[in-house]
């Protein structure tokens, strides 16, 4: 086992690509996400205004939008078609249409309509714009109604405000009060790329030449690889967690010991599974593609962009067997909720169980294998399907 571990250390030093895959690219992603989402919430969303009323009243409403940090009024036009054209070509992401006679209709209790137009093609922008625009317009509407009640019914200011509110409705997002995209997305994406890095390197780690050795001496060979990649994966989770918390400023409510334990669990499960793939498939390119196909889509299956509860039943059932699913929510919860080990024991046990089963099978496969000949990466360089069918890519 130690020999196998040392072999992997030597290969890491020799193969610069593995250093890039395991360490450089995951850290690069941390850096990218840190800079890219440094704003945390969307601001200065470009909007277009069509003001058919052009009263002081409508100007005031437009000013409410312009002074809000979520919006920036980039265009003004008097044609509804131009508004749509600006949104179609992504120059504006939302628009406001204020109808002609808007102020007069309010005065005459005619309930005029303001129309908000959103660009539905970009959901993150349109949902943020919709939430903030609705808030601004409802506040504005309450102000109008309050004035009407004071003017027409002689209500006091206080009573008019209470009446317009009907009842008060307040919302609170626990654990992520500003609804930061960075806090929500970054830990999951970083967790995903580290997993992919470990998987790609582990899936090509078995050197089938070693199978020329005596069968008894093979025992422990797989474990050495698994140990190596478990350590690499865990190390990267620790470093990335420290960077996310201390450099990117993502709230870290839990403790590092729990991160380490969960990271060991996931790295062990992924390493064992991918080393098993490497043991079973002699052609390294095919093993790499197999490992990649099994692991890369996990970051989507784990509910990174779309919650698990909304996926079709078949996907949900499949996802429940994936170790990453048992890791990623807990990882985010350690950050944002301060989840403790007691909350994730079952998931931790699952990941270790999964890894152990894969490790035992891999050791068994390597022990009973008869031949040590491995498909050379280039041996089919000029091969043709007529000469020799290769499954190489």
């Amino acid at each position: 086992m130690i020999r196998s571990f040392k072999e992997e250390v030597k290969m890491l030093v020799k193969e610069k690509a593995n250093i890039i895959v395991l360490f450089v690219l995951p850290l690069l992603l941390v850096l990218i996400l840190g800079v890219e989402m440094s704003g945390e919430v969307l601001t200065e969303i470009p909007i277009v205004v069509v003001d058919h009323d052009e009263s002081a009243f409508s100007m005031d409403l437009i000013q409410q939008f312009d002074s809000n940090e979520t919006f920036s009024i980039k265009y003004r036009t008097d044609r509804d078609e131009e508004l749509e054209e600006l949104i179609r070509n992504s120059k504006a992401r939302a628009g406001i249409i204020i109808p002609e006679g808007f102020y007069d209709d309010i005065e005459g209790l005619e309930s005029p309509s303001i129309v908000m137009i959103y660009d539905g093609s970009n959901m993150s922008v349109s949902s943020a714009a919709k939430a903030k625009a609705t808030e601004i317009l409802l506040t504005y509407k309450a102000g109008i109604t309050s004035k009407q009640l004071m003017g027409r019914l002689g209500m006091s200011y206080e009573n008019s405000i209470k009446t317009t509110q009907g009842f008060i409705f307040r919302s609170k997002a626990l654990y992520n009060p500003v609804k930061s995209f960075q806090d929500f997305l970054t830990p999951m994406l970083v967790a995903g790329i580290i997993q992919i890095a470990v998987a790609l390197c582990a899936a090509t780690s078995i050197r089938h030449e070693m199978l020329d050795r005596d069968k008894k001496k093979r025992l422990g060979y797989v474990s050495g690889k698994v140990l190596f990649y478990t350590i690499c994966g865990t190390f990267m989770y620790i470093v990335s967690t420290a960077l996310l918390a201390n450099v990117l400023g993502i709230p870290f409510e839990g403790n590092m010991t729990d991160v380490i334990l969960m990271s060991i669990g996931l790295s062990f499960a992924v390493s064992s599974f991918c080393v098993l793939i490497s043991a079973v498939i002699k052609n390294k390119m095919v093993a790499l593609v197999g490992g990649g196909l099994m692991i890369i889509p996990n970051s989507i299956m784990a509910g990174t962009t779309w919650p698990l509860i909304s996926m079709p039943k078949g996907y949900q059932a499949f996802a429940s067997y994936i170790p990453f699913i048992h890791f990623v929510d807990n990882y985010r919860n350690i950050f944002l909720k301060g989840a403790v080990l007691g909350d994730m024991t079952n998931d931790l046990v699952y990941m270790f169980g999964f890894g152990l089963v894969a490790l035992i099978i891999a050791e068994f496969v390597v022990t009973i294998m008869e031949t040590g000949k491995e498909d050379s990466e280039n041996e089919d360089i000029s091969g043709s399907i007529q000469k020799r069918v290769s499954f190489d890519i």
Partner: protein
Amino acid sequence: MKIFLEAFRREFRSIFDYPGMMILLFIGPVFLTMYFGGVYVNDYINDIPIAIVDEDGSGLSNTISSSFLSNERFDIEYYPNSRQDLEELLYDGDAHMGIIIPEGFESGVSKGDPKEILVVTDGTNIVVSNNAYAQAATIIQTIAAGVEIKVIEANGVLPQIAKNLALSMNIGERVLYDPKMRYMNYLIVCYWAVFFQQLMLSSMGSKFIRSKEYISSGNTMQKSLGVMVSCVAGIMPSMLLGLAGIRYIFHVPIIGSLLTTGLLTLLFAFAITGMSMILASFTKKRLEYAKISYMLSLPTFVLAGCVWPIEQIPDELRILTRALWPLIGYAKNVQEIFIKGKEFSAVLPDIIYLIGFGIVWLFIGVKVYSKTFSKAGPVIALEKNIS
């Protein structure tokens, strides 16, 4: 031109020499599109487990509970006794949202002294949280408007006037192009573009390394373009099948110009050719090349404007991204052409960008590739002879 055509024919034929390559190009795009698309096949997040703490137990609080109960978006799974119990449910992830109706709520409303309803969401998952909140807000505002009208009526105002006073103005809204705001429409086309990038990178890289002696032996630029076009020709039928799946199985609207999309796709393939050559020169082995190219999928995807809007990316990072990787000029444009019918004139700056990017990086790529493999060629041959 003759060399380009010869390289194209040679590399296109070689696709059929390797079943793995055929799977990559002929099945990869359609399989990945169907597999990833399946994740988003449900339009909405329905049956979100929620909890209601009803401290009032009045008729009005029952009305509110019933409205949530009858809404398909929610599934009231818990009626906790206290706010603390509710917080525990949210912490454990058993409920994604909680509604707290305070004691004295109904009497407060009738006395004109309203108390607040609190909607608490689990902010750790913004997608669920935003969806739940938006729907909850609609339900509560509808009930609140009814209450407001009744309170005005109680001041001796006729019902119609009370209604007009309460509805001093209406807020209409239209969500263009994707009124249901489906995640499918938002993401699947971007994924499709990323699949194209990854499969093109894999197949071109494989050819650049396999055929390094041939390509680096002269006229490298024409031959590399031949490689690129052969891969595009190989992958296109499956990309189109994937597109048909997006349109007819996942019902994503495709209202824009397929011609513009085709042009962008070809230019994007051109733009990544130089990068592929540099990566091949750097790694020299297909295995190492494949590992790094797979790893590029996530960073390039998050920088392409598919998750976080391009205009919200800080300027320095946006400029650096544009200088180093061209997906930012391709993926979101394709999505917007499909969904919105984004016009050619609006895409033109990115067409120019892709051409410029492609020329600069192809020039660098050819230089680096020729330098690497024209030197390595004889060494490899010598090593083979010795062994």
